[in-house]
């Protein structure tokens, strides 16, 4: 027992040295609550952005997200974040109706809120009055994809491979593509390919058989891009049928280098973790805040920048 007390005092002294935060001025506490679990590679990048910004600007930031997609669990996490009365909340507006009440309550309590990744897409007078949105515009992603393809060439006919019909984000991307191509009077159609690679490939192949003049395939995610790349290579259609993709995977960047895929669209989600922390710090210190939307994407990846992009993917920035 005699030895115990000096040891305890020593431990207390060391902990005071190691955690100076507790003895110094108060650090801002910010919660990032998203619908994506920390095991999801996409959200891993967002988390890295958040941590980097928190370290740089002397803020304490916590990431909360359900392991498996669940609106209920997501709302529970948000509620627990609000209960801690933090200095700021960063949140994905995955379901505006379900999030409406808790977020309005948080804003009333004086907690500044920034939306990331998914905005409240309801009309402004009905939308949750958060400070600003940091993320990609899904519709614009489709528009950029179609424009980039038009820069490459003017397709005779295009098909949009959608692997999850009814998914709001994917449908918005598809609409962006068909709106731009529609203006140019290029026939364009959505094709439900499903999430199974063999089925997706066969469905696309059947479509090409039915409409042999199809020379552009747009895919809305890796589950569309991977089978499309396989099809074009297996059927030796490289150069004849061009693929435009959305989202980043090594298979897609590889295919860009080999010329099978013309481009892909990235939403630079690192910024969706980094910028809100910076913005909240500026807001809390000086009341400065960007208005409405800060777009982190669509960012076009093609032959010109694919090497640099690949490097930063490996480092966890994309």
């Amino acid at each position, binding site marked *: 027992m005699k030895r115990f007390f000096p040891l305890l005092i020593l431990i207390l002294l060391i902990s005071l040295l190691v955690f100076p935060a507790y003895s110094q001025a108060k650090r801002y506490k910010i919660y990032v609550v998203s619908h994506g679990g920390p095991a999801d590679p996409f959200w891993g990048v967002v988390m890295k952005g958040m941590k980097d910004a928190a370290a740089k600007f002397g803020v304490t930031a916590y990431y909360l997200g359900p392991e498996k997609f669940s609106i209920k669990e997501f709302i529970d996490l948000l509620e627990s974040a609000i209960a801690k009365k933090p200095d700021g909340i960063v949140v994905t507006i995955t379901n505006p109706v379900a999030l409406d009440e808790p977020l309005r309550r948080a804003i009333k309590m004086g907690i500044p809120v920034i939306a990331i990744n998914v905005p409240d897409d309801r009309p402004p007078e009905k939308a949750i009055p958060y400070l600003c949105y940091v993320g990609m515009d899904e519709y614009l992603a489709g528009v950029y994809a179609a424009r980039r393809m038009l820069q490459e060439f003017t397709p005779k006919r295009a098909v949009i491979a959608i692997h999850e019909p009814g998914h709001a984000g994917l449908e918005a991307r598809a609409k962006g593509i068909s709106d731009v191509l529609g203006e140019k009077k290029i026939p364009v159609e959505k094709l439900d390919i499903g*999430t199974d*690679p*063999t089925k997706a490939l066969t469905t696309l192949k059947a*479509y090409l058989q039915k409409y042999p003049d199809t020379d552009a395939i747009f895919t809305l995610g890796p589950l569309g891009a991977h089978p499309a790349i396989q099809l074009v290579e297996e059927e030796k259609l490289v150069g004849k049928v061009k693929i435009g993709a959305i989202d980043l995977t090594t298979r897609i960047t590889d295919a860009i280098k080999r010329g099978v895929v013309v481009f892909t669209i990235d939403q630079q989600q690192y910024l969706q973790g980094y910028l809100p922390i910076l913005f909240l710090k500026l807001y809390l210190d000086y009341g400065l805040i960007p208005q409405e939307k800060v777009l982190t994407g669509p960012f076009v990846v093609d032959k010109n920048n694919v090497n640099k992009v690949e490097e930063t993917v490996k480092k966890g920035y994309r």
Partner: protein
Amino acid sequence: MMEVKSIGSFKELSKIFKIKEMGAIIGFVVIFIVFSILSPEFISWGNLLSTFTMAAELGIVAIGITMLMISGEFDLSVGSTFAVVPMVLALSINNKINPFLGFIFGIFLGAFIGYLNGIVTLKTEIPSFITTLGSMMFLRGILLAITGGFPIMLQEDIPFLKYFGGVCIGGLRYSGIWFIILAIIFAFILERTKFGNWTFATGGNLLASKALGINTNKVKLINFIICSFMAGLAGITTFARFKIIDPTLGQGMELEAIASAVIGGTFLSGGYGSIIGTFLGAFMIGMVRSGLVLAGAPAYWYRAFIGIVLIIAAIINTKIRKKTAG
């Protein structure tokens, strides 16, 4: 006199309808004819073979599930097994383990998943629907945890994989050949061996089978193993072709495999079914899919059509069975 004659001709007719696969055959022929009329490209070799490839992947899974369903059990975990087995193979190859060893290990793992599903179901006497629902989530979770949600890409070319996913002749792929071979083997096992008989008996009337001295638990356990083994093998054929495993690979496959079996005449309640029927059922689902694209149908209607085909096929099967039974 007239009465006797009509009974005679009815017997002749019912003999033809006694073929278990009659419903599937009728459905198959009708769908084939309808799409051939709607689109000339439908009956091209290119399309039929690529449709067959699509059917093969689903069909191999469905053969296993048919065996298990006939013996009176379910397996919802086939979609996850379909992804986990090739994942093991891919990780072995990427970590410089002998690919053949990785293959053996993967196949064994597939069989082992079936063994676990079976043991848990039979020892604890909970419905296999629940056991395999649990293992479906568990295995998918393992897959997500190990891959971190990233797709796994095969980093080198492995020659022997050609015999699973590569092209055999023309547009015919090895997966299609596996499908045919496995269908013949299991049709033979089911219809011509003691084990096949036991499988029917176990699913048809469990208590009577036990009374007859059939080790029903052993029969079920073997069918659990067959089912997972086949799901794993089918997963390898897909992986061998695409050389990539997306973390969602195989999701929703369990229901489509069950649908193939049911369209082919297998009962959800067990005790009745056919491998040839399942073979046709899987092909039918493939035909509807590619057929609708080739017919230029609006894309968002496929799922609806497959749903309708499923219900009509089930109705035809039930009607025919009642006729033959009555």
